[in-house]
């Protein structure tokens, strides 16, 4: 039980329905050279694993699989690391059960 379990979040997100608002990301990461601790914590805290590190060591977001929970806003908006909004009406995740 103490061993790490390998989880592929992409497989989980695959169950969900989304209507992606192409070209209108609802969350933006402030451009940076070195990420703050807040930004780094999002790599693990985001339940849809939207945050990834690029080859330059900067945190990037791809919000297509976002489930709109608000966790990254609670962690990273106060410090100005991210800008957070809901998607436009009708777009984003569409829960069948919730």
């Amino acid at each position, binding site marked *: 039980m103490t061993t790490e379990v390998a989880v592929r979040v992409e497989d989980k997100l695959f169950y969900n329905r989304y*209507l992606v608002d192409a070209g209108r990301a609802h969350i933006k990461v402030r451009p940076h050279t070195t990420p703050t601790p807040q930004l780094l914590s999002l790599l693990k805290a985001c339940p849809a694993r939207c945050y990834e590190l690029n080859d330059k060591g900067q945190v990037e977001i791809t919000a297509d699989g976002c489930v709109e929970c608000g*966790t990254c806003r609670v962690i990273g908006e106060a410090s100005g690391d991210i800008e957070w909004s809901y998607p436009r009406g009708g777009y984003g995740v*569409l829960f069948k059960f919730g």
Partner: protein
Amino acid sequence: MIEERFDAIVVGAGMAGNAAALTMAKRGMKVLQLERGEYSGSKNVQGAILYADMLEKLIPDFREEAPLERHLVEQRFWMLDDKSHVGLHYRSDDFNEEKPNRYTIIRAQFDKWFSSKVKEAGATVLCETTVTELAQDAYGKVIGVKTDRRDGEIHADVVVLAEGVNGLLGTRAGLRERPKPENVALAVKEMHFLPRETIEARFNLKGDEGAVIEAVGTISRGMTGMGFIYSNKECISLGIGCLVADFQKTGETPYGLLERFKQHPSVAPLIEGSEVKEYAAHLIPEGGYNAIPQLCGDGWVVVGDAAQLNNAVHREGSNLAMTSGRIAAEAIFQVKSRRDPMTKENLALYKKMLEDSFVIKDLKKYKDMPALLHNQSQNFFLTYPQLVSKAMQNFVRVDGTPKKEKESSTLRSFVNARSWTGLFGDAFRFARAWR
């Protein structure tokens, strides 16, 4: 700008927003409700246990038509270590009553039905519309909302903020702070589908009877958190949530916790062979009484999760949401009936009525619990579950050790782990926070 003017605009069509819109529309007020989802419910996540009493106050005969899953006859509390669980189960045939007290529901379906009642009562419900900002006059009074539709500004005498836990619009308008990481939990949840008979056999149920399990222990890895397993008709809702501050501190992943919870030897047989059809995540307000923001101001009130009205100890949220939505609507109607303006002073009637209800009374009772559980999370969520499991195993395993030796070894393990002062301190602090 849309020229039409409304008595009230309700932002959000969740439990709180639907209760508020329904109550005002039934009283003949001109209500506009705005929801960003495709339909009411398409963005909403819950366990979900529905408490009948609070819905009955809004729709007395809801049992005849609401999409309900199972009425609950059994509640289990589990304390888990890595391989075992110690359980307290309460089951009673009394719960097979004519008007059961608790049901499981599926939010996307339930909210859609609830919303149909709001429309029937005469409210205008506009979905697929995200409110982007509150419209304020030069003095800061809220006079309406701005939306992402063309000509998106709409005016009303009062805005009911039922926007859910994130409280984005309230924060943007400077009416409140953003929720803090130590005051909200992130929960992840999956829907596991199985044939009806399989669920009934595994949970020992007949017909529409249901059982629910709440679990704490090593599954949250020392973080303040809880798991849940709820039986629906043809699926099982399973999830786990922990404080965002704890995720931030420990670097644990939410889906990693969920996976380990599913693999726990007490849990795995319940969902074996199931087909997962959805993965969802949502925040839960857990700061309790001390985290409640301003409840009203000039031209606005805030209800439900947006007001952080959630009782984490009893896992009640939707009922506080429905009740606060209804009470806010009744207060607004009273102010309107007197032809008084929707000022902060007049709308304070909502705050007063809410304080007289179970909502604020319950949250006040547990006001010290969130901080206690957060500060002592290692003890309450890791050390004690392990100790209790060890003690139980020591008690039931028959291996020729004299009982007296067994008892003193159990006692020793508690004292070694927490010391006498630690044990008494924890008991005292817990009792005081519960009182």
